[in-house]
């Protein structure tokens, strides 16, 4: 099933061409090519240390790469990020966190709108430290969303949540994506999550995109769909996991 991906239609919101990144003498990314179409939902899988977060940070403009190593990253439009930890400023109430840095005429109203969309409007006046993990992650999503991003980068935003909250958050992200249609790059190590949400799944291994699959199913998807079961074993094998254990 590898490499049977049809060419992208429509323009790209982000293109990564031949991007490499070294930390000391360790090469983390070695000539990565990725294109994310406008409104496309892409999931990036990889083992820990495979460089998937490094790639996301480069797209977010957070990579302090030495000049010359930054080449190959092009993003067209507004970028927003939701991190693995919600990273709310604890000394600002939820609404102020979401409105922070907004340059629209009425940041407070915009923040309230985003909080309503993620179902957190009743906690708008709360201190972040009083939120549950799921609520904090919703606030973090609202903060990303309120900027009306063309590219939304999600860095394992659900990995610290409990299983039930994670399911709710998957629905929420799909819902928001269908309403606003940003391009999304979701970095995750959860194969099921990638299969349930994304249009296209990439696997990063050995510093390159080692595998690419298109998931051509309508949403909401059921994780027991035969096509997904096939894809899952392929992806797990690519990641070095076989039904008997780790290869």
């Amino acid at each position, binding site marked *: 099933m590898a490499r049977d991906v049809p060419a992208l239609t429509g323009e790209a919101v982000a293109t990564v061409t031949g991007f490499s990144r070294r930390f000391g003498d360790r090469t983390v990314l070695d000539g990565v090519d990725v294109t994310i179409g406008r409104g496309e939902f892409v999931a990036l899988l990889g083992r820990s240390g495979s460089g998937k977060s490094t790639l996301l940070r480069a797209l*977010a403009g*957070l990579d302090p790469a030495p000049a010359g190593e930054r080449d190959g990253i092009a993003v067209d439009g507004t*970028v927003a990020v939701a991190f693995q930890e919600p*990273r709310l*400023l604890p*000394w600002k109430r939820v609404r102020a966190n979401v409105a922070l840095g907004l340059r629209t005429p009425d940041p407070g109203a915009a923040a309230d709108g985003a909080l309503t969309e993620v179902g957190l409007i009743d906690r708008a006046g709360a*201190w*972040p430290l009083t939120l549950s993990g799921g609520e904090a992650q919703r606030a973090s999503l609202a903060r990303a969303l309120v900027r009306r991003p063309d590219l939304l980068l999600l860095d394992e935003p659900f990995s610290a949540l409990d299983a039930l909250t994670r399911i709710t958050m998957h629905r929420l992200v799909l819902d928001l994506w269908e309403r606003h249609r940003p391009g999304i790059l979701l970095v995750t190590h959860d194969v099921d999550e990638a299969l349930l949400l994304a249009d296209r799944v990439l696997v990063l291994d050995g510093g390159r995109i080692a595998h690419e699959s298109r998931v051509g199913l309508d949403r909401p998807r059921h994780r027991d769909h035969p096509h997904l079961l096939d894809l899952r074993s392929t992806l797990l094998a690519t990641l070095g996991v076989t039904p008997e254990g780790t290869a």
Partner: protein
Amino acid sequence: MSTSSLDLARPAPRAGLAPRAPRAPRPAVLARWISPLAVLVLWQALSSAGLLPERLLAAPVTIAATGVELFRDGTLTEAIGVSVRRAALGFLLGGAAGIGLALVAGLGRIGENAVDPIMQMLRALPLFGLIPLFILWFGIGETPKVGLVALGVVFPLYLNTFAGIRGVDGRLGEVARVLDLGRGALIRHVVLPGALPQALVGLRQSLGIAWLALIVAEQINASSGLGFMINNAREFLRTDIVVLGLVVYAALGLATDAVVRLLERKALSWRATFLR
């Protein structure tokens, strides 16, 4: 740090487990007053029995009476006024310098290289060892007293504010970059609020030192203030006035500490829910 170290050390009463009337004094609190009161009673008894000569230490009742008397004739109020003015002036000067230098050093490498080595070296100088120099430079008027207080205040505020700025979570700095905050907004929304808890620790430390520095400074040939009142009383063997002066110093110290704790509770209310 606000109320934290103290309040956390105490076992928090769990709501639901042991429901209590919220404001009724707890037996444990009352129990803590027994031994200080016993000492006071013993002290009074020894004085009344003539075992503790007035020349060494006046009786509590005498001290209280002297306090009322000096308050009535205005001596005490005037002395407190003079001393508080010195402390406040020194504190404001030293505080502004400490925080200002911490901002310069904390917000950039160049500032750090310029300011921090000097501050670290000066910090090693014994504060009270500078008194002879201060007298040579400033004479024996108000300046050396205010200056000594200011110098005592500078270092704890500088060190803590600087450490607070540098201790701000770098991941929040990344958020600021992702949100496209400018440098000014980064400092205002992330760096300063993040450094505030540690800066308030410095504020409390520096207030303690401010009073200490004032007490020492007022021994330098003062002609007014609490230190003068105490020194004067020593010459006439008035131990009641000496002890009264000490009690007033202590009360002033406690009062300013209470103000800072109140300030902490207001400024760090975002943590209060988390600490409680």
